[in-house]
């Protein structure tokens, strides 16, 4: 199922982004024409928001944005649980959250300033906050189904990994402590949110080098187990960092909705109004 899901997701990304890219290339000259001159452009009647292509972009974008709500519905409506795990829905939600705004961007013919900026930038805020949310989502340890783990569950996983390193790979307990120290090195959960996320990402690269050094310095691990050992070391280190930031990330992630949802609501509100006005003024 997961393979089929990945194949479908890749296909959707390729198809969706490909269509966007194709039309962006086709309409490049129009899109790069100053706004006041666009009505005189030969592609105006195709690529203007209400044009033959532009209107379709809007419909496609609006449809995608609407379908995104399926994820929200999946999380809140139990009968939908039969239709796959939340994580899979999130993948489609993210896909729609990427392609939908891009189609809307084409629909707007990149006219993102001016009077209609509020609706557009609401959508942009939703999309960008979605990217941030996706990042935060990944930083919070989850079950395979995508369900958020509790702190006790995380700590239990951490204990289990320490035990594996000692028992399965013959690593001395002090080496496990050394690994935990190296993994948490440079990470201060009390930093400002954006700085924390930035330094965490930077430290992740540094930590990867330290873990490589750590793995090589323990030659007692049998060669046949080395690959599994390295994965276990990396997983242990990542878990330790997330465990260290768990409370902060969880708190931030929960408040992230405060950022994501209002803009989403505003976006949908304006989308509905926009569609309503378009219908009322005779464009659809």
């Amino acid at each position, binding site marked *: 199922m997961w393979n089929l899901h990945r194949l479908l997701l890749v296909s959707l990304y390729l198809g969706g982004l490909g269509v966007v890219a194709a039309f962006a290339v086709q309409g490049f000259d129009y899109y790069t024409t100053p706004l006041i001159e666009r*009505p005189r452009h030969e592609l105006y009647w195709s690529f203007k928001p209400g044009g033959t292509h532009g209107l379709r972009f809007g419909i496609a974008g609006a449809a995608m944005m609407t379908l995104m709500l399926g994820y929200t519905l999946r999380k809140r409506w139990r009968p939908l649980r039969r239709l796959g795990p939340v994580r899979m829905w999130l993948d489609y939600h993210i896909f729609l959250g990427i392609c939908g705004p891009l189609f809307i961007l084409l629909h707007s013919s990149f006219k993102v300033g001016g009077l*209609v900026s509020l609706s557009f930038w609401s959508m942009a805020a939703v999309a960008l906050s979605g990217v941030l949310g996706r990042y935060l989502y990944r930083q919070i340890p989850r079950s395979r189904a995508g369900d958020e783990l509790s702190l006790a569950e995380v700590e239990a996983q951490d204990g289990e990994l320490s035990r594996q390193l000692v028992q399965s790979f013959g690593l001395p307990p002090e080496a496990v402590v050394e690994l935990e120290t190296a993994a948490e090195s440079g990470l201060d959960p009390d930093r400002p949110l954006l700085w924390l996320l930035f330094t965490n990402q930077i430290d992740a690269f540094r930590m990867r080098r330290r873990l490589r050094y750590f793995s090589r310095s323990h030659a007692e691990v049998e060669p046949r187990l080395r690959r599994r050992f390295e994965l276990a070391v990396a997983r242990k280190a990542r878990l330790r960092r997330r465990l260290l930031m768990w409370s902060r990330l969880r708190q931030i992630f929960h408040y992230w*909705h*405060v*950022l994501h*949802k209002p803009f989403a609501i*505003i976006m949908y509100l304006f989308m509905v109004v926009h569609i309503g006005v378009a*219908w*009322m*003024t005779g464009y659809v």
Partner: protein
Amino acid sequence: MRALLLATVMLGVIGLAADRLSAQLSPGELSSAHAALDSSRACLECHEKGKGVTAQRCLSCHGVLGERIAAGAGLHARSDYQRCETCHIEHHGREFELIWWGKGTESPPEGWQMERPPDGGQSIYFDHDDTGYSLLGAHRVACRDCHRASHIEEPEKLIAAGKDLDRTFLGLATECATCHQDPHRGQMATRGCAECHGQDAWQPAAGFDHDQTAFALDGRHASTECTGCHVTETDEAGDWIRYAGTPTACADCHDDPHRGRLGRDCAACHATADWRRVDRGRFDHDLTRFPLRGRHRPLDCASCHAAGSFRIAGHERCATCHADEHSGQLRAACSECHDVDGFVPSGFDLDDHAATDFPLEAAHRTVPCADCHARVPTSDLVARGVAVAMDSAPATTRVFRLDAAGCVDCHLDPHAGTADAFLGEAGCETCHDGASWRVAERTATGEIRFDHGATGFDLEGAHRTVVCVECHELSSAPVTGDVMLSFQGASTTCWGCHQDPHLGQVARPEGPVSCRDCHSPEGWTPSLFDHGRDSVFPLEGAHARAACEACHPTETVEGRDVVLYKPLPTACSGCHRAPEETGTASGGVAR
């Protein structure tokens, strides 16, 4: 708590943009022309629910345009111009021009087009032809050259409709006078401007054909400037040319050089190609003060009217045109001798000549004038004291004013003066009259009137009837070869003129025998000879009866027949023969 925060954020965002919320419904600012409608509550002023922008909504404001559409007039009445919004694109800001002129200007370059949206897959461009008025030639100018407030026919109507007269394209009629002042001041009111004028330029009026007017142009009229006939007048608007009512009679424009004598129908003689070229077949010169007669009739006009002037002062005088052939010798009017049928022959006849100092008589009446009136260099006349205008006189002139009228003034004296001593006061006419020079005038008896006796040789007998040249020798003048008859040296003896028929038989030893012994001037015969007295052989008996020839035979000497007189025998036997010699009883005359 989280829901409260969420609501706060959302309301905050909306609150921050509250003043622009209504604008979120509009895709963009309206143009300045529609700025009054730029409100979220005014969408349906232009948009119709479910139909978009409709012409009805537009025309609810643009009533003037609606009236034109209803009337089927102008661009917007066309079926492919019914969708307002396809040309007049909105929501692109205050500065956006609702009317697109290709390059965004109202003064587009040559070949401009206004782009319109694809419609049925085919591009449509604005073409001024679609308005019902094609822009041709010089009309391809900037829009505002025509579409300006001053050209609008009923501006108050547009003003009432809220139109800006400096921006609207409505209100212009297609008549020329809408934009152009009528330079003809209504003279051509019954004709459209386009009947004469093209759109490339006002002039030349290519469509105007003067031949279609009441006065077709031909000849020199065709190349004459309009203003040559049509007067320029001036009013408060400037100069204009009067065409209507232009008179068509020749005399209305041209001065009549004939001062009305030939009537008003100039075309009867003159063609428009050239005033000087007169149709002689139609021109009646007899209507002038100088009717053409005789040799004047076939002349080219230029022969008399060389300077192109048809007014010839002094035309009644021949000398006005003709040089005086006589170089002023004659005072009489030319017409007294000549007429128009030719300078020669002259009408000056013998009767006229009789009135001169030299009446022509006899042979003079038949002599050609030129024999007496010789042609001499005109300068010779001046030498003779004749007042001659040399600049107009011919090079040679016949002399008519002769200094004297004596015969020898004309005739050569054939007698070379040998008769002068015997001529009386009558001169040559002593012997000659005018009938013939060759025959000296004789008296009623046939005698010459000249007293020949004065010469020492009186004419007697037959000498009176003998013509002079029988006695006087004719000769030729040394140079001229004229016949000369000299009287000098003529012999006074008989044999000076007559031949001796006797070949000297009667000559005497002491000298020649005078012919008068036997003959008289009255005639050769009868002879005065007496055979008994004057010869040695008087005739007696039968001798007196015998014929002269019996004794004087005729013999031929040196080719001439001569009667033999001497010597003849005087004895009988000199003439007679014995009978036995003759065989007769009486004998006979010897031969």
